[in-house]
C-alpha cells in the first residue's frame, strides 16, 4: 500500500526526522488559510499515487495566499495518470543549497534491507543510478543490529563534507531505518534530502510503501488507506479477497493463482486476443469469491467474452462451478463464457456445469482459443 506524500512526511516527523512545515488541504479555501499561516510563499502539490506530478501540472509555486488558493482550485479535481486529485499539500517554498537521495528497500538478492544514498538527489536519481552507479552508495544492513552509527556516519560523509551535516544525515538515516520496521514499510525514500542556505538538513519529499502483509499488525497505518486513489473495481476486488488489475482488452480472465493467471493472459495474446484484466481468485475455493469475481468482470464494458481457467489443487473445481452457476442466477451474463477446469473434483464440476447448461473444457489452449474467437465475433 502506497502512502501519500503528506502521510509519509507525518511518519518521518513522528520518528524525529526534520521535515519542513506544511499541511494538507482538500479545498481551495483550506489551501489559502494554510498559505497565509505559512507566510504566503508556498508550493501547492497534488497528492496522488503517480510519478511525474510536476510535469502534469500538479505542482505549482505561489507568491501569495491568493495565488495558492487559485493553484489549489486548478489542481484539486485534475486527473494525473488516471487518478483524480482530492488533496493538495501546502508547504513553504524552501531555498535549497543541495539535493541528496536516501532510500531503504528490502533487497531480494542480499535478502536484507539495503540503505542507498546519493549526493545526486532529485528527479533524475534513476538516471544517475544507470549512468554513474559510483554516485550511489549502498549498505546491506544486518537486521539484527540495524544501521550501526559508524556505518551511518560513513554514508553521511558520502553526502556532505561538513561533519555537522554528515552527522545530521546519519541521524536521519538511522531514524528512517527505525521507521521502516516500525510501520512495516517495504520502501522508504527521502528524495530530495536537502540542505538549506543556513546549513540545515531536511527531508523535503518522502515516499513510503507499506507491505500489505503488515497491515493487520498496524491498524493505524491501514487506516491511512485512501480508497479514492484506487480504481473502484480494484477496491471491490480486494474487499472480496481477490487480486484484480484492469487492462484494456476484450477477454475477461478469471484464474486461480497469479502465475497461471499471467500465463493465461499471455496465451490470450498468443492466440491473437487481448486480456481485459488480471484476476486471481487465490487458493481457497469459496463459491462466493467466484460470484464476486464475475460481478467485477461483467461490470467492465470492454469485456466481450469471459474465460475461466482453473487448475484445482487446494481450489476445488466443484466450488468454482457452483460459484459460476450461483452468479448467473443472481445476474445474467450478457457475453459468452468459456470454462476450463481440471484437477481436484473436476468430474463433479463438469457435472454441475453441464446440468446448468454450460460447456466445460479441460484443455487450456482450447479454452483460450475459443474465448478469443468469441470476443472477436462479438466485436
Amino acid at each position, binding site marked *: 500500500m502506497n502512502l501519500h506524500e503528506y502521510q509519509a512526511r507525518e511518519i518521518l516527523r513522528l520518528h524525529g526526522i526534520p521535515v519542513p512545515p506544511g499541511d494538507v488541504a482538500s479545498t481551495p479555501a483550506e489551501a489559502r488559510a494554510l498559505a497565509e499561516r505559512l507566510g504566503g510563499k508556498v508550493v501547492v502539490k497534488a497528492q496522488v499515487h503517480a510519478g511525474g506530478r510536476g510535469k502534469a501540472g500538479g505542482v505549482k509555486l505561489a507568491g501569495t495566499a491568493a495565488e495558492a488558493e487559485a493553484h489549489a482550485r486548478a489542481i484539486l479535481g485534475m486527473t494525473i495518470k488516471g487518478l483524480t486529485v482530492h488533496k493538495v499539500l501546502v508547504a513553504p517554498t524552501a531555498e535549497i543549497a543541495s539535493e541528496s*537521495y536516501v*532510500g*531503504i*528497500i*528490502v533487497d*531480494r*538478492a542480499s*535478502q536484507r*534491507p*539495503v540503505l*542507498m544514498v546519493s549526493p545526486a538527489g532529485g528527479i533524475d*536519481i*534513476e538516471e544517475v*543510478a*544507470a549512468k554513474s*552507479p559510483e554516485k*550511489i552508495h*549502498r549498505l546491506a544492513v*544486518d*537486521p*539484527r543490529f540495524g544501521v550501526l552509527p559508524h556505518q551511518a556516519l560513513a554514508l553521511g560523509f558520502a553526502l556532505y563534507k561538513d561533519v555537522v551535516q554528515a552527522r545530521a544525515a546519519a541521524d536521519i538515516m538511522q531514524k528512517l531505518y527505525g521507521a*521502516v*520496521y516500525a510501520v*512495516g514499510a*517495504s*520502501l522508504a*525514500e527521502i*528524495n530530495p534530502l536537502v540542505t538549506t542556505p543556513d546549513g540545515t538538513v531536511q527531508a523535503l519529499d518522502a515516499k513510503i*510503501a507499506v*507491505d500489505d*502483509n*503488515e497491515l*493487520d*499488525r498496524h491498524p493505524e497505518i491501514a487506516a491511512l488507506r485512501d480508497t479514492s486513489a484506487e480504481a473502484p473495481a480494484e477496491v471491490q476486488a480486494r474487499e472480496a479477497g481477490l487480486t484484480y*488489475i484492469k*487492462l484494456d482488452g476484450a477477454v475477461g480472465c478469471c*484464474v486461480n*493463482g*497469479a*502465475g*497461471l493467471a*499471467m*500465463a493465461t*493472459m*499471455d*496465451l*490470450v*495474446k*498468443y492466440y491473437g486476443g*487481448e*486480456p481485459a484484466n*488480471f484476476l486471481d481468485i487465490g*487458493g481457497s475455493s469459496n463459491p462466493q469469491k467466484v460470484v464476486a469475481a464475475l460481478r467485477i468482470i461483467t461490470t467492465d464494458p470492454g469485456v466481450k467474452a469471459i474465460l475461466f481457467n482453473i*487448475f484445482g*489443487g*487446494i481450489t476445488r473445481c466443484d466450488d468454482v462451478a457452483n460459484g459460476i452457476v450461483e452468479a448467473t442466477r443472481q445476474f445474467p451474463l450478457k457475453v459468452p463464457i468459456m470454462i476450463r477446469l*481440471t*484437477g481436484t473434483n473436476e468430474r463433479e464440476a463438469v457435472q454441475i456445469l453441464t446440468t446448468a447448461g454450460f460447456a466445460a473444457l479441460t484443455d*487450456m*489452449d482450447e479454452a483460450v482459443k475459443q474465448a478469443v474467437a468469441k470476443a472477436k465475433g462479438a466485436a
Partner: protein
Amino acid sequence: MSVFIDQSTRLVVQGITGRDGSFHAKQMISYGTKVVAGVTPGKGGQLFEGVAPVFNTVAQAVRETQANAAVIYVPAAVAASAIFEAADAGIALVVCITEGIPVLDMTRAMPYVTEHGARLIGPNCPGLISPGKSKVGIIPGNICKPGTIGVVSRSGTLTYEIIHQLSTHGYGQSTCVGIGGDPIIGTSFIQCLSAFQADPETEAMVLIGEIGGTDEQQAADFIQHGVTKPVIGFIAGQTAPPGRRMGHAGAIISGSSGTAAEKMAALARAGISVMKRPADVVPLLKERL
C-alpha cells in the same frame, strides 16, 4: 534418486490440527510421505489419524521421532516464528507453505536459518514432491509421475499446469520444487538447478519463472556456466502491465525492470529453450532429449 526429499524424509507438520494443516497432512500420509509427527502448542499428546503423535514443540517432536524435515501451515502472523522454531530444533529441511508473511520478518528469519545449517523452501510456495517417494506441501500427487525431469518454479498452479503437460505426455519427474513467489525465499532457482545437475536420475530441467526481480537472469547465468543438462524455460507475465513500481529504489537496486521480455532474452542467450506457452514444454523437451 531425487533432490531434497525421498523415502528417508521423516516429516513433522507444524500446525497439524489447523484447517489447512490437517487436510494436507492427510493428503501427504495417503501419498506415502512418512509423516512422523505433528506440532500444535497445547495439543500435545493427541494422535493424528492414528499415525502421527502431536507435540507441543518442534524440539520435542524431533527428540521423540527423529524428524528431519518440517512443513509449516501456520497463519502468516506466526509463520516466521515457526521457521525460527524448526531451525532451532535442528531440522535440516524446512518447507513453509504459508503465504502473506511480512518481508521484514523474513529479513530476520533468513540469517537464523542459514546459521543453523538448515535449508528453507518458500515461504508462499506449494512445497515439493519426489513422485512415488515423498510429497511435502500441497502439490497434487495425482498429476505427477516418477521420472527424470526436474521442475523448479516460482508459481503454484502454473507449475501444476506444466507438470500435467509433462505427465500426460509420458515425461515423469525426479522432483518438482515450488520455491515460492516472495521477495525473500530460502532456496533459489540456482540452488535447485545445481541439485538437479548433481542428481544422476535427473536428465533435464524445466524452469518456470515470472516477471519481477532478477532471479531468472541470475539462473540463466548459472546455467550457462554450471549446467550441462538440457533446460527448458518459461516466463509468465508477457502481457502484464508495467508499473506497480517500487519508487526509485526498486529500479536502482536491481538495475532492471524485470520484464518478461528481458528474462526470456536472458534465458535464450544462455542456451535455454524458451517456451511461448505451457503446451510448448513437451515438444521442446523432445527436441533436447
